[in-house]
């Protein structure tokens, strides 16, 4: 018997009520949204529940939505995978744009340690309770967070490529 998506949905709604919502089957992945302050509880529940058993964190990343209202300007996306039933789910959690922070899950999944550091590095999302939240890929001296949409891709100080000869402008679009 395979794990049905409806079963996941019913269990989550029964336990967390309106904190989990927007259930949707996107192509081959079942996805839903979770309130940011409930994220650790939901993921812990998904991992430890004897029938759900989402024991493997496949991926964790951030997304920046600068055009959304301020409460939903950043999203953290979690991909969980149940290998016993071969079932994948995607959880999205929107957070505030002015003060992006969410609780860490590094105590639930060891592997999320660096993924959260990467997300902090790229987006400046603060993972509360993370044991060592510092930059991982970029230089420590960097102040801004490069994956935010307003950050230009190309280095502003470059001198080797004259835009007049490449038909480019100084702004990336």
């Amino acid at each position, binding site marked *: 018997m395979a794990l049905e998506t409806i079963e996941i949905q019913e269990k989550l709604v029964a336990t967390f009520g309106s904190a989990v919502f927007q259930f949707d089957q*996107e192509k081959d992945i079942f996805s839903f949204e979770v309130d940011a302050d409930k994220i650790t509880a939901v993921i812990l529940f998904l991992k430890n529940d004897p029938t759900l058993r989402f024991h493997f964190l496949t991926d964790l990343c951030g997304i920046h939505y600068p055009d959304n209202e301020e409460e939903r300007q950043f999203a953290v996306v979690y991909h969980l995978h149940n290998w016993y039933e071969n079932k994948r789910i995607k959880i999205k959690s929107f957070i505030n744009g002015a003060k992006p922070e969410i609780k860490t899950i590094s105590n639930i999944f060891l592997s999320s340690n660096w993924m959260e550091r990467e997300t902090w590095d790229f987006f400046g999302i603060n993972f509360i309770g993370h044991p060592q939240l510092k930059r991982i890929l970029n230089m420590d001296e960097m102040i801004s967070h490069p994956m935010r949409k307003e950050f230009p891709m190309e280095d502003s100080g470059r001198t080797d490529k004259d835009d007049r000869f490449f038909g480019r402008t100084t702004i990336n679009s």
Partner: protein
Amino acid sequence: MSELLLPPEHRYAKIIQERHNEDGSELSILNLGPTHPATHGIFQNILLMDGEKILEAEPTIGYIHRAFEKIAENRPFYQITPLTDRMNYCSSPINNMGWWMTLEKLLGVEVPKRAQYLRVIVMELARITDHLICNSILGVDTGAYTGFLYVFQFREKVYEIYEEICGARLTTNMGRIGGFERDWSPKAFELLNTFLIDFPIAWKEFENLFERNRIFIDRTVNVGAITAEKAMAYGFTGPNLRAAGVDYDVRVAQPYSSYEDFDFIVPVGKSGDTYDRFCVRNAEVWESISIIKQALAKMPEGNEFHADVPEYYLPPKEDVYHNMESLIYHFKIVMGEIPVPVAEIYHPVEGGNGELGFYLVTDGSRTPYRLHFRRPCFIYYQAYPEMIKGALLSDAIVILSSLNVIAGELDA
């Protein structure tokens, strides 16, 4: 120069001051990397050592951070394949095909069976080359340079096949949405057949050189062992996880590109140590050879090499000059005016090092809104400090090369 040395407020400095060994010896710090010749790539590890024994390690990565994800947000879908090449450059065709399959899932394109089989062949060739590098370099690190020099010429043979298919050797930029950019030439099949005859003989010899070699066994058995539970907690996938005894393989769990048509086993190890990792990779090469042979045998007749999707597949140049419709499609594809559905897609493939995932968010424009790569190396490399704890310095090098950490994939 001094800014690269350890600052005095570093926690290791404190540990050294407080720790007093009975024989009066002191702990020391060794800076391994980022350009250490034995590390095959640029990772820095600051090791706290008691004599030859490693007590703790602190890794620093990001020395070739190239901002793939930022570039991807600024490039049309076609221009992202060259980026995927440069991620795990030891097995670039797998990355290419993974990216095309992600787009095909997004656009709902059905790839013809023959093109799928061709893809399987090229992906398995890439897996062979990837494991070949990893295992032969592991030999170099344990003192057997010969094996490396011997099997490396077969990597050249695979490069020749790649060249015949797409024109490039290493960074292949192979394929299009719906299949390949051109049909494989008869020469490609000829080279492939020669490879399938010659390579197994050499690989058998290579295997014999190491498998029961006293020195190799002493250097690798029980070195860098990791339990299955720990490996899963650290997000291991691919050969490194299978060496610990978990038979998770994306090719079996979520077959893509008709992997379900082929009969192959998923080799697993037992103890998750360096020797098991070597053996799992070794066995996977044999499975890959078998898959390629099956694919060649089952190859459907005809010369279909791409799906019939004119709105995504660039028409032949000749048609563009003489045919109005083709010209329109050409223009639309090149200018990025093809409508793309607004969706979020996650597509995993079994890369050389494990589950390589593409998480694509589109907003209907010509570029991805967000593209995140699930890079297996990046995720499992964080277990490295724990794996080398208590090991000797020379073991640390062997463990690193058996993990097959590729810098390009690690740092994105």
